[in-house]
Structures are given as C-alpha cells and as structure tokens.
C-alpha cells in the first residue's frame, strides 16, 4: 500500500453523541447545501442517497433500562482512506492541505470499489439521475456541481465552504492557511441547534476541536481498522463508546 500524506491542517469534527437528539436538521441542511435531490420514497435505505445519515443506537437492554442515542455519520475523511487506494481512476484522493478526501465526479467511472471498501458506508451511488420537483432546481446553490446517474458521491465536509473561507481571508488580507476557529464550518455543524458538532482544525491548538478530540471520552468509529478517521465522537456513556468498534465482551473500552 502506498504511503499516506500528512497535513499541517487537518479538518475534523468532534460530535458529542450525548448532545444529539436525532432531529434530522443536519440531514436536511446537508441536502440543501450540497444539491442532493429529494426522494419521494426513501423507504429503501440502501438506495436513498444522503451524505450525512443519523443512525439510531440502542444499549440493547429491555425496558426500562433501555437507552437510546443518535449518531450522525458524515464521511470520516480517513487519514488512511481505503477508498482512495482502490479507486482505479484516481477519482478520489486525499492530497489537499486540510486532509479532506476528494471526489471528482466526472472522473468517476461508477465501479463502486470505493463503496465496497468504505467501512463506514459513507459513499453513495447515483442509481438514478437526480430530479427535483418542478422549479425546485432553481434553489440549487452555485457551490456544488450536480452529479448525474452512474457516479459515486460522498460528504466533502462542505469543501466549498473551505474554499470560500480562504477566499474571504485573502480579500481581507488574512492568511488563508491560518483560518480562525469558526471561519469554516460545515452546513451540518452550523445547522445543529444542539451544538452537537464542533468543527475545526484538529492540528490547531487555537481551534476548539483540537482539545476535544484528545478528551477522555473521545473515540472514533472502527478505530482499530487503522483508517485514522478525522471525525471523532464523544460520549460519556460507556455503552455508546463500546458500539464504536467491535469489542470483545470483556474488553475494556477507552474512557
């Protein structure tokens, strides 16, 4: 396997699962921001396309000991992304400062190797051409290209907002490579009324997320696969952290 790049800036999330109540505002804000087409029937979750999905977690205990939690799952922007190494046409890559895994749609041939390799099910295939109810396509943003049938897409951490934040910094005479905390946040981060998502540069001590990901209760999904995700989760509840990976029954969970 090829070696993976290290970056000075590493955009990441710290999602506090104890603060998420599963309302779904992030999923809606994501679709509107990234020009994802609505689906009249989304019963079939294998064929419904949403870059960010909120999963329901259960502690598995019967009533009244039952607990519920919700887990928003964007693309993990892995440090060692398995999708990148399997792509035969380099449509997806991790090569830009910031560490966001890119996906170039016109380059994608729709082979879906990346979908098979992604352990987080973060990638989606366009089984159909995207369609909007009449006139609704006028509300598309100019920031994200619309993807046709036959290509794979995924969360980009609202990469266009990164570019816009850098341009704003340039115009204002600030260093585009030293954005302040909050200059660039994703649509879901901004939309969440519970503040469950904190977004920023994991490598920058001036960013809140920097300390959060080092916290006692911070963990990543399937950490032991070695994918090195840039999305961290936080929960004070042991059972929630335990669901983050395949632990043996007697194995101790971090935190």
């Amino acid at each position, binding site marked *: 396997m090829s070696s993976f790049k290290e970056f000075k800036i590493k955009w990441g999330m710290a999602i506090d699962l104890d603060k998420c109540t599963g*309302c779904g505002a992030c999923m809606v804000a994501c679709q509107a921001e990234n020009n994802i087409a609505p689906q009249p029937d989304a019963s079939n979750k294998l064929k419904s396309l949403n870059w960010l999905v909120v999963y329901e977690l259960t502690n598995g205990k019967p009533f009244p000991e039952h607990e519920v939690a919700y887990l928003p799952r964007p693309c993990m922007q892995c440090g060692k992304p398995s999708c990148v190494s399997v792509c035969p046409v380099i449509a997806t890559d991790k090569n830009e400062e910031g560490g966001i895994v890119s996906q170039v749609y016109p380059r994608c041939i729709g082979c879906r190797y990346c979908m098979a390799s992604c352990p987080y099910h973060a990638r989606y295939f366009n089984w159909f051409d995207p369609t909007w109810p009449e006139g609704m396509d006028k509300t598309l943003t100019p920031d994200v290209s619309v993807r046709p049938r036959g290509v794979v897409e995924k969360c980009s951490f609202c990469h266009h907002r990164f570019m816009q934040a850098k341009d704003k910094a340039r115009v204002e005479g600030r260093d585009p490579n030293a954005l302040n905390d909050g200059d660039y946040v994703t649509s879901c981060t901004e939309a969440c009324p519970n503040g469950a998502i904190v977004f920023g540069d994991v490598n920058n001590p001036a960013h809140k997320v920097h300390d959060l990901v080092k916290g006692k209760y911070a963990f990543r999904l399937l950490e032991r696969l070695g994918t090195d995700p840039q999305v961290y989760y936080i929960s004070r509840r042991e059972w929630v952290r335990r669901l983050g990976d395949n632990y043996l029954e007697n194995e101790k969970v971090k935190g």
Partner: protein
Amino acid sequence: MALDRRGFLKFIGGATAGILATPVVWKSLDDVSIWTQNWSWIPRNIDGANSYVPTVSKLCPSGVGVRVRLVDGRPVRVLTNNDHPLGGGLSSIAAAEVQLLYSPSRMKRPLKRTADGAYVGITWEEAETMLVEGLKKAKGGDKLAVITGDETGTINELFTALAAEMGSKSCFLMPGEAQPAAKAWELMGGEGQVGYDIEKSDYVLAIGANVLETWGPVIRNRRAFKAGRPHGETPSVRFAYAGPVQNNTAAGADVWLPIRPGAETVLALGLANLLIKAGASSPAADFADFKALAAKFTPEQVAAQTGVDAKRLAAVAQELAKAKRPLVIAGSEFGQGGGAAPVLAGLALNALLGSMNREGGIRALPYARKVVPAAMDRKALLQNDLVGWLGKVASGKAAAPQAIVFYEANPVYALPQTDAMKATLAKVPFKVAFTSFLDETAMACDLVLPVPMGLERFDDVDTPYGSGQVVYALAVPALAPLVDARPAGDVVIGIAKKLGADLGVAAFADALKAKAEARGASFTEPSATNAHVSSAVLPVNGIALRADVLSKAIDVKAPAFPVALAPVAKLNVGTSKTATPPFNTKTVRRWEIQGADLYVMMNGATAAKLGLQKHDRIELSNPAGKFTARVNLFEGVINDTVAVPAGHGHTAFDEFSKGKGENVMRLLAAGAEPGTGLSVWNSAGVNIAKA
C-alpha cells in the same frame, strides 16, 4: 483515373493514417467526453452575488430565527441566525424552507370547487366576489367561524376583527400547548403569558413537554440545552424528561422517567409529595389544600398509577430540591390535548421550588396590546376551545355556522377523532381556506385562496408560548411571491371594506408597525435579526395552587383498553400544514414508514404479551377509528403502550407524503377535563389485533 478495390483500400489506409496524425479523433473523443458530462437534464450551477435576509420562520412552529441566502436574488438556502433570540440552529422544517417554495403541493392561484367536486382556477377578483357573497350570508349571531393555525401572529387580529364586524365570536386557534397553559395560569391567578426562563435554569424537568423537539420555540430551547452542556463534560444544566416514550427529548435528557400516557399530573403531584416532605412549601393561600392533596400521592401510589419507578422518582425529587434554579415544564408529549391540569401541577411544582418570578424560573410576560380595535386579543382567543366547540356543533348543542374561514390551519387532518371532526366541518355550507398548500382542509373547501409563504411576506412572531422573555420578531420577505398569492391580511382588510366594515387599519403592514411599536420595537435601522427582545415582566402575586381543580382533573376513569396509545411527535415529518417536506423523507426512520406502511412501536414485553413480533401486521382500533400498521420493537416505550409516530397518513399533498402511513389523530377521542372543562385527548387506548 478509375479506382479499383485495392486502390480504394490504400486510400483508406492513407486517410486513416493521416487522420490519426491530426486532432480529429482525439479532439472528438475529448469533446464527446465533455458532452457526456453536461446532460441537458442535469441542472447547472448558476453563479451570482450572495445576499442575506434576516427573518423568522412562520412555517416552522419553532418560530426559528434564520437568514435566507440569495444568489442574485434567487433564494438557495435557509441558514442559521445565531444573533436571533429565537435562532441558534435550524429545525428540520426550516432547513429546507426555501425548497418548499417550489413544493408540488403549493397553491398557485385561487381555486373554487365546482358542482362536480373538481377545483378550477379563478382570478382574485372572482375569488373576492365569491368570498364576499359567501360571508354576506353569515352575518350576525356567530354564523361565521374563524379557525387559525397561527399562534403568534398579528394576522389573527384581522381575522377576529372581521368576525367581530360580522357579529361573531367563534374564533379559534388550532389546538396547541398555549391554550391549556393559558387556562392553567389563569386558574392560578397569574397575569399575562406564562414564560419559562430555560436559559438561566440549572435543572430542567420536562413532564410530558417535548422541550427538545416540539414544545415552544424549540430551537431557542435547544440553544439553552447546548449552552448547558459543554462538549464531553459533565453538563452544567441537567435535563430530566418524564413521558411514555423515549423520544428525542428523552434522548437528550440525563434522566428518563417512563410514565403512562396522560399520567403527567399524577407524576407532578408525586414529586410535590416528596418535595413537601423534604420541607418545600409555598406562600400560596391554598397551600394547605395542596399539601393535603399531594400527601395522597405517595411514591407507591404514584408508581402504581403512572408506572414510574419509585426510586427514579425519588432521585429526581432530590435533584430538583438540590438545584439552585430548577424549572419544571409540563405539557403534552405530542404538543396538544393534554389539558390544563398537567401545566397547573407543573407550575405548582415551580411554586414549591421557589421558581416563580425568578431567573431561571417562571416569568409572567405581558401580552401586547391589540392594534386592530375590533379584534380579539390573544388572551381572549386562547380561551376558545375549538375541539369542544366542534363537539357541541356535532351534537347539536351549538348551531353550525353558515361560513367558516381557515387561515393556515388544517383541522380536517390535525384534529383528534379526525373522522368525526371532518364530518362536522362538512356540515358548514361555505368554507374558505387561506393556505399556501393544497392540504386536506383546502380539499374540503369551496374556495381556496393562496397566501404567500413565510419567506415571501411581511409577518410577525410575537412572544411564542414557552419563551422566557418578550420577543417580537418580524418576518421580512426575501423574495416576491412566486405564485399568484396575496397577503391574507390585506385581503381581509379589502373584504371587510366590501362588507361595509372598517377594521381601522389601511394595510397589514400598518398593523405590524403598530404591533412592533406596542412591543417597543422599531425596525427603522437595518438589523441582523429583525427581532426585538424586552425584559418586561409582570409581577407574580397571590398565586394559588388550585388543589380543588387538580383533584377533580385527576379523577378520570382508567381507559378500558388493553393497550394505551402514545403519539410521538417529531418535526422532521413536517406539520399538518406542510406534511413531510421533500428533503425530509430521508430523515424518516427505516422502521417508521416502509412504502405505504406505518410502523408502530412497542417494547418486547408488550409485544410478547400480545403475541406479536416485529413486522407483524396489526389493526389498531377504538370507537374513534381504526387502521392497520406494522410492529416495530423499541424498548423505549413503557409497558402496555403502543407508540405511534404522528404526522403521517396524509390524504392530500404530494408524492412525498400522500398515502404514506396512517394518521394517529384518528384514534384520539376527545373528552372534557373535569374541573377545567377543557378538551383533552391525551389518554386514548386501543385494541390491537393481528391483521
């Protein structure tokens, strides 16, 4: 020179070699590949200059403050407005409010129903003539009724003033949390509107009230939740939730107290019992009565009646007593039909905790003075009980009106015992709907008038119930109406004139200006919010705990059904006015809706008792109605209870919601709350049989 076969082949060979040495093949291949990247049916990005309009969502019941992003004047996003007193995030409805402007169910022109039941488009002039003619027949003696779905707007003053000019007081709000609360506060002798200062509280106990999903200005509630819970740290503000289902509020709360549906009052009295035992008291004149009442609700008694775990109850009582600024918020887990007793009991708890008229506690907020002289003010409007009145009309105890006007209300879908209510409304000879969407109620009307959507009109949100302070937020149009819609306020003023009445305002904008002034707000300067906050509060003196009312209200017969019914409200499926918005179908959980099937939830023990397994098809029935659904096992439901997701089963709207699932409101039978007379429908039961 003749060309033979071999010569021709040589020519072709030469031509081929030559062509390969020119750009023809390579350029064509390249162009074709570019051509395939730009199919004509794939929409293209349209660039332009960004602009932002701060406003407030009239579409979402949370009244969330937002910023609309426009690109060259074309709205593309609703964004968070952190400066807004009701902002701080987005609700799942407001997040795609811009996209709803192009909803397939959007009303595009006035419609009238023809004799054969079909709807045909008419002009506004024809529509207004028809409206005037229809209303003329409803003059005098409560022959006109108004039902409005807007709890916070000045628009209600115009509709109620029109009704008053026509000699009618039959004006009603759609059921919500505000009405029972107003009743409870009035019974206690409180002045103004009861307010909840969640922001400054350090312990919030929600009894029934779905404070993190549907209760009050929920985005503002959730901002307080966010502030009290730093990432990954022990929360500085604890939240506890009591209700039958582990809903979104329970998911965020530190403690969930499972109680049976409709058991909120008893739970509150159980807590009062423990608090009084621990030394809590109140200066209220009737404290002794209350103490005597509470004494009956020992933990054992409460555990038996509500199903709550006595230990958990005691723990919550202790936490409440220990907290510096505790706040109890009581209501209905699905936002309506809970009656005044739970709110009354909840407010009594606040009194015991010393939370009356205190930071982080209960506040009495002044109502704004009315700005349309003949109008009903908010307090008066809140006193009218729509469900009770329709019940009387159905049974002949009240005369059916000659005409009824619906403003942004969908009672045909959203009222309890829906089937009966629909039949009652059908008796009214002339029905008019002012609406943005062709909903179930519009489909039952003779005349349907399109109103601009919230993002296309001036409107206001005045201190929604639940707010801890006076907030006046102006809705400002981000764009001109995309359809042939007219602002309802101006239409009403014009109609009144044609009926010979002067409402005292020349235009709706004047009414808004006057209301803003009444709230001490002026919007002359450009603002990042278009909202005004005031710290005005009323004194809270001589509050009574009303044990007399409570003791009557809790004296209800246990439902004679094997399984209790708990509707579960979530904003992601929209409101009765929007149905499920296009972008929200993906947020509906897998085992909530599958195709046309609704999934209902029960815990494993309940299912085993009923002999049911996941995915089994069942029929839920009671005298109010019946429907079939499938079983989903969810352990976050109290025993012997079926939790039914609300907001499905639309028979109007579009492919994003129509015909999906069932409408739980059909199973809710309304009764009268003893002691207050308010309509209640939060303790229904059902029979369950395999279908």
